[in-house]
């Protein structure tokens, strides 16, 4: 028997991580100063999705790091692609490093969930083995 809730959470987190990649893609667009007004609109949407999905994830699991504050600080410091494109290289690098810290932090959480997934799988395999013996 698979833990459907846990599987769903893993899928949700994988989806969330892909959205974080989109955030980095937008940072690169700003750095290259190659973006359209449509890209800027999409950047706002990506940030909105990230903040909303964060709440859904936090409602399901306790996350020590990255913290909600860290994420809101990062999202808040990137109001638009135009704003980012006017930032100094140093400030952009700092933003990128914050993004990286958060991104890797989420991967650690995903790894922990996968460990739980494997543990549950082996537990249920053992249970079914002993269940058969009892018969």
């Amino acid at each position, binding site marked *: 028997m698979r833990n459907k809730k846990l599987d769903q959470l893993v899928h949700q987190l994988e989806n969330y991580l892909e*959205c974080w990649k989109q955030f980095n893609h937008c940072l690169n667009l700003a750095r290259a100063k190659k973006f359209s007004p449509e890209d800027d609109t*999409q950047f706002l949407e990506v940030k909105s999705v990230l903040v909303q999905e964060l709440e859904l994830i936090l409602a399901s699991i306790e996350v020590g790091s990255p913290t909600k504050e860290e994420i809101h600080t990062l999202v808040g410091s990137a109001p638009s692609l135009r704003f980012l494109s006017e930032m100094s290289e140093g400030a952009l690098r700092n933003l990128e490093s914050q993004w990286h810290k958060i991104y890797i932090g989420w991967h650690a959480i995903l790894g922990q969930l996968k460990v739980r997934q494997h543990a549950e799988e082996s537990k249920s395999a053992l249970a079914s083995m002993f269940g058969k013996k009892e018969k």
Partner: protein
Amino acid sequence: MGLLTLFAKPAPTLLRLSAGSFTVDRQGCVVVSTLPSTFPAGLVSDIAHEVLTGFREAEEAQLPLSELVINYPSLKITARELRGGAIVFFAPKTPYAQASPTT
């Protein structure tokens, strides 16, 4: 007057097009949406289904897509692939569109 209204076609329903986005996981479930809650959920699911089918068929044809853009006269839909799932952006060009085709 009563006879005329009896045979009159019902007025087409207008759907207010909203700017926004939603994400869909690889199983086709909408994860989050920034579209207003008045936006028909059925329409969002239909678009999610079509988008995922498009990405999957392209992958099966060994022509994987990273982005899919659908240009309607009144709406531009941009979908980006998220490793099996997708993020879909809505950019209306006009404020209204017909909610359902008239017969």
